[in-house]
């Protein structure tokens, strides 16, 4: 084997790789934020007393969780216009990832809500809080603290899913990596650097979330 490593082509385009990474992080952040809202609403719907609401929520979660995200991305970007809904590639990707995130996060939130002792809700009722107040000031904060480790796992995997935006030509990290790969033929170097960037980003996110976890932990 006589492959000579030569990183010059990759270094020349390194700024665009970094810009791609930045866009990926941005997409992940926006989608996760929207996904958290969808997930929270769905989690409460899953635990609702109304059967129709429960059925609808569990249909949404089951369908999204069992469909490949690439099919969802391509379907929403390419197929929805023929139903009259036209989105540009960035917003269509954000919509897809938010829907996807919502389905995954709702399961996390649901298990967190189920794990809260009944007494907390009853205590809230006893001091005269309404159902809505109990949710926003008791259930959600307690649940969030408990599910934080599971949330960070989900956030990281959602960030990694932004790589699929390259399939609809959103210029994020994987898109630039493929471009550099094809233009320079420095195959090994390109993918080594790309992998390194992804791993570093995931590690940073994990560290950041662990810090949040430690800060929010209840000292006993």
């Amino acid at each position, binding site marked *: *084997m006589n*492959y000579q490593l030569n990183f010059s082509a990759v270094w020349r385009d390194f700024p665009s790789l970094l810009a791609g990474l930045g866009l990926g992080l941005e997409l992940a952040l926006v989608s996760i934020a929207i996904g958290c809202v969808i997930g929270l609403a769905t989690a409460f719907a899953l635990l609702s007393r109304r059967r129709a609401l429960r059925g609808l929520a569990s249909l949404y979660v089951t369908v999204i969780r069992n469909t490949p995200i690439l*099919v969802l991305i391509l*379907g929403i970007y390419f197929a929805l*216009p023929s139903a009259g809904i036209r989105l540009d590639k960035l917003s269509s990707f954000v919509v897809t990832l938010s829907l996807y995130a919502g389905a995954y996060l709702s399961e996390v939130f649901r298990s967190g809500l189920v794990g809260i002792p009944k007494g907390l809700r009853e205590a809230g009722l006893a001091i005269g809080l309404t159902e809505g107040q109990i949710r926003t000031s008791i259930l959600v904060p307690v649940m969030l603290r408990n599910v934080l480790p599971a949330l960070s796992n989900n956030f990281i995997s959602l960030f990694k899913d932004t790589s699929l935006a390259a399939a609809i030509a959103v210029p994020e990290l994987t898109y630039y990596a493929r471009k550099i790969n094809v233009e320079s033929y420095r195959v090994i170097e390109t993918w080594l650097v790309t992998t390194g960037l992804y791993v570093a980003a995931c*590690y940073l996110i994990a560290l950041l979330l662990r810090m949040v976890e430690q800060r929010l932990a209840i000292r006993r």
Partner: protein
Amino acid sequence: MYQPPSWFHELWAARSAFSAGLLTTVQCSALAILCGTVLGVCAGLVLTYGRWWGRWPFRIYVDLVRGTPVFVLVLACFYMAPALGWPITAFAAGSLGLSLFCASHVAEIVRGALQAIPRGQLEAGKAIGLTFRQSLAYVLLPQALRQVLPTWVNAATEIVKASTLLSVIGVAELLLSTQQVIARNFMTLQFYLFAGVLFFLINYAIALLGRAIEKRVALL
């Protein structure tokens, strides 16, 4: 007057493309799950019981792969293997990427399950004269298996979903076959929906199977 062919007509005309795509999806997913599980169980055992010089390489491998999107992994295998002087087909490269991904996840699942078993059980095995291999086979692994099964089934559906990424490197699995059919008849909405439903059915079937197995092996 010209009547465009109906959806069912188009579907019937594309039946061989769809069945071939479905077969390829099943083949590469099954191959990846099989190889990934074997490799992952070995890695998980070393991660739990190995010496530090055995643990380190596997730790690096698992963290590296888990910090990289599957998409990047598949692309990297596809482009890097020939550059390193190993000419493999797109199918093989894709399956390799999926297997590496599956193995890293299975390794973590197995490690988690084995570490959840109280240390006293290994010591108890030693006390009644079992060798390490015997206590592994008769005491630890049967218990770990119960823990692992639900998560492992989850990992299997993840692999089926990730197999759609092979469409990008030109493996004519279900998604690429669908795209080829769409390129011919432009029935975007109908056929993306059809592909989505097929993937949903595969994954839902696996999930149901997993639930049934879980019930069978559960301790009463």
